[in-house]
């Protein structure tokens, strides 16, 4: 397997892992406080909806878009997702935003579940079903986008899918064994790493894909080929560390 493929599978695994951990927290909160049956029914319904969405989106992207346009679209999406994660990670590392905590998230979800009224249909608790469905579907759509974009752009959908499947299986096993939110996972560090990877790959593909707007409609070429991804990764890391060091000073100056 090439270095780029390892990078993609690794990125897919870590990004999916973080999303699955968040989905698990929501489902556990509904299961413990409301109804396991309804929480699991909501999860299964979301997985069915996700499967249909994946096929539809994957088919549409690979059938209708030429290669350079696909790179531009998926690269731009990756960039936006990656920089959103990098923004939060940078703010958290610099102390300007509170760290994400799965135990706290679980407590918030559980409190909302206890406060909600009781409405049952077909023997299913509507609140637990809907919250579990939304949680799993939303986090799942992010995983699907990462898998589709990484898989199609690298021409290795199998590797990307297996990265996500392995992450999902690991979270499921950990959740079943531990039976509590996976707060021991260094989620903030993982998100920082994933943000950097998504930003680097996103920059590479989005700029390459701009070639679709040229008269030849061909992808642009990076000096050094795939190695440019490593340079971009180093660039985003350096930039984020500079921001971590300087943004608190800016905030202090503003407070004066």
């Amino acid at each position, binding site marked *: 397997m090439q270095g780029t493929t390892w990078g993609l599978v690794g990125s897919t695994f870590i990004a999916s892992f973080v999303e699955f951990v968040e989905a698990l927290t929501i489902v556990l909160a509904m299961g413990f406080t409301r109804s396991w049956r309804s929480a699991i029914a909501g999860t299964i319904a979301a997985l069915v909806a996700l499967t249909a969405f994946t096929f539809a989106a994957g088919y549409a992207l690979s059938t209708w878009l030429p290669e350079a346009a696909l790179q531009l679209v998926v690269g731009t999406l990756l*960039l936006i997702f990656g920089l*959103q994660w990098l923004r939060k990670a940078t703010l958290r590392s610099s102390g300007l935003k509170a760290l994400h905590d799965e135990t706290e998230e679980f407590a918030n979800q559980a409190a909302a579940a206890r406060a909600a009224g009781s409405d049952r249909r077909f023997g299913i608790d509507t609140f637990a079903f809907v919250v579990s469905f939304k949680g799993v579907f939303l986090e799942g759509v992010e995983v699907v986008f990462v898998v589709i974009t990484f898989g199609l752009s690298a021409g290795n959908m199998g590797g990307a899918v297996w990265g996500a499947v392995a992450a999902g299986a690991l979270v499921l096993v950990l959740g079943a064994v531990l039976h509590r939110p996976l707060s021991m996972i260094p989620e903030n560090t993982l998100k920082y790493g994933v943000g950097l990877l998504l930003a680097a790959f996103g920059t590479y593909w989005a700029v390459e894909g701009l070639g679709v707007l040229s008269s030849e409609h061909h992808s642009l070429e990076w000096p050094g080929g795939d190695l440019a991804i490593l340079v971009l990764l180093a660039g985003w890391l350096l930039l984020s560390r500079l921001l971590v060091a300087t943004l608190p000073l800016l905030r202090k100056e503003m407070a004066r």
Partner: protein
Amino acid sequence: MRFLKAFGRFWYDFIIGDDWKIAAAVLTALALTAIAMTTGLLSGSILVIVGAVALFLFFVVSMVVDVRK
């Protein structure tokens, strides 16, 4: 109509997220790079490097605006 609104809201939340400035930064940097390319101002390796630098710069601008608020 309610469904369309909810559908649009879902995709807005999903893509733009909780900070619209990031999406604006990405689109602005890419648009400027595209203009430099289509007008013949830049080409080849310089063009892609300038594209990456533009993305770095606009990300910094969005973060600074975020913190100064």
